[in-house]
């Protein structure tokens, strides 16, 4: 794995690296200036948010049960998914019921759906998933994968996007971001009008009221959760907040950390299907995804579950900036991914990712929930080391056995060439003599 990481980075396109470096630096700077304007003491806010999330993880069982009850009261249908296969099966089941001949599924940006590879499963079952976030749309038509959890096409420049749009017949070739965006708008409008199902992720969920909170800037999420007849939201079980009064702190921290905004353009508070209003979905389904999280909760990397997916640690990381997200070969890249990926899928398989770090500690400094990522990376490294074959194991064996050690030291004193230039310590074995003769 580590070999592949290095190899990938050596083969990187310089344009992609330049584009990633410029974008991450811009957001990194916007983050600090905005959070500094909003909070009197940013570190105080980060620690406060960490304490709320720590409480959530300590009491997840009780909070999930409370949340489930409130969702039912709001008219939201709750489904539980032990793993990715179960989550996919649940979502496919709903789609098949709503549109037996195959559903058009408009999708808002969601890392959880990436994690379970939902698009692949929808397509194989005869449905048509359409990513509607501009970045995710480009990723989908290119058969690519997102390289950043907030800015999925951070590795692409406008010429690549222009060629893709021309190829897909969205309009004439143009390198103007404004015109490219409008081509995508026109194309996706038609999809929103015809889709039967909208799929989204969830940013926060309030246990005490069952409120589902989703943030976005483009408005595609709002269309996905408004225009189709059915809305399916997929959320990791760790996304809960205890109470409504926690929301303001987390919304400010998420927007500031992710993009340097005071608040995202659209902040949705969903409390069930359409009631007396004129439109909105007739059914709202919520799929609660475990997929390894409860196991992580019981292990040494549990604090990574505080993560609110702002991407600040990616933007701050000198390794991410130089290597781009694809080098990590996982849905979750960057410092958070280097911990979350092996924690979810096994240290044996992905533990080497922890080596893709300079341990500078910047990821912890910018983390809105103060996750001790560098400590976890160190722990992963030592765990990974224990898992692999140790070239020094004969030395370790000899050094741990007094008889072998003494024999080894005697052997080392033998070479003449060595002794001609160095004086071996004369008082060798003094300690042992003292130990033997002690009263």
């Amino acid at each position, binding site marked *: 794995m580590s070999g592949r990481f290095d190899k990938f980075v050596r083969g990187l396109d310089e344009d992609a690296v330049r*584009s990633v470096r410029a*974008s991450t630096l811009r957001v990194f700077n916007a983050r600090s200036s905005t959070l500094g*304007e*909003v*909070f*009197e003491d940013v570190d*105080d*806010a980060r620690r*406060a*948010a960490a304490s*709320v999330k*720590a*409480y959530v993880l300590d009491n997840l*069982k*009780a909070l999930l049960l409370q949340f489930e009850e409130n969702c039912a009261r709001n008219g939201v249908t709750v489904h*539980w*998914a*032990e793993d990715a296969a179960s989550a996919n099966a649940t979502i496919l089941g709903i789609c098949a019921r709503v549109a037996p001949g195959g559903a058009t599924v408009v999708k808002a940006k969601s890392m959880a759906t990436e994690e379970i590879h939902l698009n692949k499963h929808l397509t194989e079952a005869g449905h048509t998933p359409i990513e509607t*976030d*501009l970045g995710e749309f480009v990723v989908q038509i290119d058969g690519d994968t997102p390289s950043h959890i907030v800015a999925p*096409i951070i590795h692409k*420049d*406008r010429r690549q*996007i222009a060629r893709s749009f021309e190829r897909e017949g969205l309009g004439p070739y143009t390198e103007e*971001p*404004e015109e490219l965006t409008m081509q*995508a*708008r026109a194309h*996706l409008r038609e999809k929103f009008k015809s889709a039967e199902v909208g799929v989204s992720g969830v940013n926060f969920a309030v246990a005490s009221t069952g409120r589902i909170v989703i943030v976005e*800037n*483009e*408005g595609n999420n709002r*269309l996905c959760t408004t225009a189709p007849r059915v809305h399916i939201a997929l959320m990791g079980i760790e996304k809960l907040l*205890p109470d*409504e*009064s926690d*929301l*303001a702190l987390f919304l*400010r921290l998420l927007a500031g950390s992710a993009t340097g*905004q*005071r*608040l*995202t*353009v*659209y*902040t*949705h*508070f*969903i*409390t*069930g299907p359409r009631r*007396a*209003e*004129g*439109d*909105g979905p007739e059914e709202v389904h919520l799929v*609660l995804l*475990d997929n390894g999280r*409860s*196991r992580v909760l019981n292990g040494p990397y549990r604090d990574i579950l505080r993560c609110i997916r702002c991407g600040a640690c990616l933007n701050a990381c000198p390794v991410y900036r130089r290597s781009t997200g694809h080098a990590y070969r996982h849905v979750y890249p960057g410092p958070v991914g280097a911990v979350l990926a092996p924690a979810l899928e096994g240290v044996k398989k992905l533990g080497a990712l922890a080596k893709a770090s300079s341990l500078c500690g910047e990821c912890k400094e910018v983390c809105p929930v103060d996750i001790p990522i560098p400590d976890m990376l160190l722990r992963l490294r030592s765990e990974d080391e224990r898992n692999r074959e140790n070239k020094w194991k004969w030395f370790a064996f000899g050094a741990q056995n007094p008889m072998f050690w003494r024999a080894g030291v005697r052997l080392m004193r033998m070479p003449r060439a060595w002794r001609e230039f160095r004086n071996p310590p004369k008082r060798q074995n003094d300690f042992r003599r003292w130990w033997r003769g002690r009263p």
Partner: protein
Amino acid sequence: MGDREQIMKRLPDPKSGERPTPAVRVRTPLENLWQEFGERLHALGGRVRSLESLGQFRDNAVFDEDLPESVREVLGSPVTDVWEAAAGVTLGDLAVAETGSVLLAALPGRSRLNSLAPPTHVVLVRQADIVASLDEALARLSRQTSVLVTGPSRTADVEGVMVMGVHGPRSLWVVPIP
């Protein structure tokens, strides 16, 4: 055993302990809330406009049923297809000075697409319905599905260049009404 039971079995029993209720100090505006609001909204690309400016959308807008009669008179007859309208005119429940946001609840007689599909969204907010901070706004959330709108729809996915109106409205007007 079902998925729910499997997950519940693995989750540790809740720990006792107080729910933390941290008091985080935030810089929020204290006075001249509408002026603060206007400056924030302007920085986001939105505008505070007067009621008279709505005349240009006469017979070319969609609007919610709960608009005041005086505003309906200015707007004339509504467009039937929300996707074809030049503007969507809706009532907002609250303006937030700290962030330049407006709160829209999906109340009876309202349509969510009216504030989303047309290229211009006009929100009418009563002058008294303004709060200083996000905390105050969230404390007034109803049980209805709601949205906080903070500026026009935007994206920076293409090389970080800001483009307005990617999926939602390209322009957002907020009109304070008595």
